[in-house]
């Protein structure tokens, strides 16, 4: 049975005839009686059953034998692990449909199950008839995934020929598919798949979508490719070409990219939920050392740690936070992410985001370089990259992490920046100091801002920022815009990039982008800001909207932001210093 073949009853293609015969089910329940009964029932449904009385053992089994199961049935109450937690982990790591079972059928529990992503919730005692239909969840999931791929411009097995116009398809679908993605995301948990498996793809002829196992190395290549291309140009076809992995199909890449984006969005979404502006602000203001980690905070931390960009204290603090939040982490193994964080290539902006944190050292180094480079370089531009990329992070707790890293970077880079293009690397990057501030406030704003900005052409903003930095303006907005105008090349790239991110981010919560911009920019650069203000024509810069009034006033950042809220960003902090700030302002 090939790994890529679901429902493998040993044959690759013959399954469809007998489907759902041979459906590979994993049952997890600490009650051996129920386990035995379920096993027997499933056997009689002609399914391929594996039983496990311990959640941890089941998880290990799933990890070791990736691609060997089609659906998981799990009890809710288990001594070694909460069933919902297992549910989440399975959804995240293996992206398998999970059906919850419990003797407790109380509504609140069923609701929890749904919220955690369960495909179904069965109440004990279970009847054979109920089990007969579980195959529908597997099919539904696959079809939804296929649909998403189509949304993103990817094609399913059947129309592989349709590869032309990938870029456009992809780009356009990203935006408009955003809704679709969101919808399907809500329906099912679609998280990036990570594991140490090898890449396996099914034969093209198979009627089932091949399930590719994205190993760390593979993902790194993927990320690197996305980086190289730039998020706005990161279309499956090109990514595939860059990756140059035999056996990998464009569809696989598209699917992975989709998941990646969803993951980022999820991060940002959860970050926002988890942290919220307040917490964010609070933590940021306090120390920048102890960011609150969102549910995925652990990833960020790991990412940061992996990239070696986090200063020890920060890392320690982050870890402390991380550890202190047992339920916050989805439980993804750190290891999985670390390698990702240290791509040999530049880190893509969006990639950087979820994973982590900018590399202060790099950033610093790179400051003088054009933004483009920075952005691309894994480390240096991380700021900007991160900013942009960190959809999730900025949004909330995650953002905290980012900020922390960024702040620190910012500080370092700021100095550099002051001299040169301060913000460049991080289009979004806001001076460290302000970053914190921004962060807090940004959360609310960033999202909007980003959106708005991203929509409007970066170019608008360019003029505003006379300096290449543009980003130094602090206002997150600026950075985005700056990106374009920034100092120049980099600015442009950055800006563009930002824009693209914004767009792509739209799929997710845009906030993160915004934050990025703001972070770092924050108040720390008041003077700069002023400069920008004065120089930049502003109006357009700040937002597609009518910021015109605002432009360049010193104060104005706030105003600016207000107006600029193309995306309806709320400006939380009124920080005149940076646009960034303003962006956040209510």
């Amino acid at each position, binding site marked *: 049975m090939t790994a890529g073949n679901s429902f493998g009853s040993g044959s690759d293609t013959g399954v469809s005839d007998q489907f759902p015969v041979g459906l590979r089910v994993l049952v997890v329940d600490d009650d051996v009686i*129920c386990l035995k009964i379920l096993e*027997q029932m499933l056997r009689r449904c002609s399914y391929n059953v594996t039983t496990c009385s311990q959640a941890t053992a089941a998880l290990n089994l799933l990890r070791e034998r990736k691609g060997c199961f089609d659906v998981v049935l799990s009890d809710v109450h288990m001594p070694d692990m909460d069933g919902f937690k297992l549910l989440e982990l399975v959804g995240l790591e293996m992206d398998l449909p999970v059906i919850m079972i419990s003797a407790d059928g109380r509504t609140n529990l069923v609701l929890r199950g749904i919220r955690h992503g369960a495909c179904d919730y069965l109440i004990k005692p279970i009847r054979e008839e109920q089990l007969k239909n579980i195959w529908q969840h597997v099919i539904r999931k696959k079809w939804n995934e296929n649909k998403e791929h189509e949304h993103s411009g990817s094609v399913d097995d059947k129309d592989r020929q349709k590869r032309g116009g990938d870029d456009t398809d992809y780009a356009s679908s990203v935006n408009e598919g955003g809704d679709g993605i969101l919808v399907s995301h809500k329906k099912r948990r679609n998280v990036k798949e990570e594991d140490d498996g090898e890449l396996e793809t099914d034969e093209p002829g198979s009627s089932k979508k091949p399930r590719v196992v994205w190993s760390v190395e593979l993902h790194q290549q993927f990320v690197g490719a996305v980086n190289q291309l730039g998020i706005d140009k990161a279309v499956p076809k090109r990514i595939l070409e860059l990756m140059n992995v035999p056996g990998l199909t464009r569809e696989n890449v598209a699917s992975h990219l989709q998941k990646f984006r969803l993951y980022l969005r999820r991060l940002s979404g959860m970050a926002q939920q988890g942290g919220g502006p307040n917490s964010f602000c609070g933590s940021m203001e306090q120390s920048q050392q102890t960011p609150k980690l969102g549910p995925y905070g652990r990833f960020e931390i790991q990412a940061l740690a992996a990239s070696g960009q986090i200063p020890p204290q920060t890392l320690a603090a982050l870890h402390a936070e991380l550890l202190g939040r047992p339920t916050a982490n989805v439980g993804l193994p750190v290891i999985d992410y670390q390698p990702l964080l240290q791509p040999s290539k530049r880190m893509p902006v969006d990639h950087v985001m979820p994973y982590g944190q900018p590399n202060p050292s790099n950033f610093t180094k790179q400051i003088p370089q054009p933004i483009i480079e920075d952005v691309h370089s894994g480390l240096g531009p991380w700021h900007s990259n991160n900013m942009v990329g960190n959809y999730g992070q900025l949004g909330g707790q995650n953002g905290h992490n980012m900020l922390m890293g960024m702040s620190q970077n910012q500080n370092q880079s700021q100095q550099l920046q002051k001299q040169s293009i301060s913000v460049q690397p991080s289009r979004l990057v806001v001076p460290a100091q302000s970053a914190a501030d921004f962060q807090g406030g940004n959360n609310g704003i960033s999202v909007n801002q980003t959106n708005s900005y991203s929509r409007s052409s970066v170019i608008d903003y360019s003029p505003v920022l006379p300096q290449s930095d543009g980003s130094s303006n602090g206002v997150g907005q600026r950075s985005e815009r700056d990106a374009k105008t920034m100092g120049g090349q980099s600015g442009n790239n950055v800006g563009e990039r930002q824009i693209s991110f914004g767009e792509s981010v739209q799929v997710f919560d845009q906030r993160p982008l915004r934050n990025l911009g703001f972070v770092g920019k924050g108040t720390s650069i008041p003077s700069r800001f002023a400069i920008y203000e004065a120089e930049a024509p502003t109006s357009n810069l700040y937002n597609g909207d009518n910021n015109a009034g605002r432009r360049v006033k010193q104060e104005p950042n706030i105003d600016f932001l207000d107006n600029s809220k193309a995306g309806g960003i709320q400006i939380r902090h009124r920080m005149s210093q940076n646009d960034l700030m303003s962006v956040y302002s209510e």
Partner: protein
Amino acid sequence: MDVVTQLQRQFVEYTTSLYREGYLDDQFTQLQKLQDECSPDFVAEVVSLYFEDSEKLLNNLETALRQDIVDYKQVDAHVHQFKGSSSSIGAQRVKNVCVVFRNYCDAQNLEGCMLCLQQAKTEFIVVRNKLEALFNLEQQITQAGGSIPMMA
């Protein structure tokens, strides 16, 4: 009437009464349906498992409730498990006691819990005896060369 037929009749009557009196519910029928050539002793195996497991659970419950400071969460966990397994094999009365038991747990009503524990024990012992009697009948029928009547 020969022995086999007699036994079979007895079997049917006994089974019917068990259902009628609520000791067993439809889930037990489901269990019986699961038995086939591949698993000829399925029901007996599952029920044996249930007996073993339940004894442990009941002992744990006893211990937990006799603590100076009762951990109701733990008690609830045990009851939940007991309820799950009882319902899975169709031990209806036992399951019903568990439902009440859980309510007392939620309310942290020690007296109520102790009462339920006693009831659970009683019901468990009764259903165990009845099932053992049923299996006994089955065995007799088989040994007499007859087949076990399938309950609709």
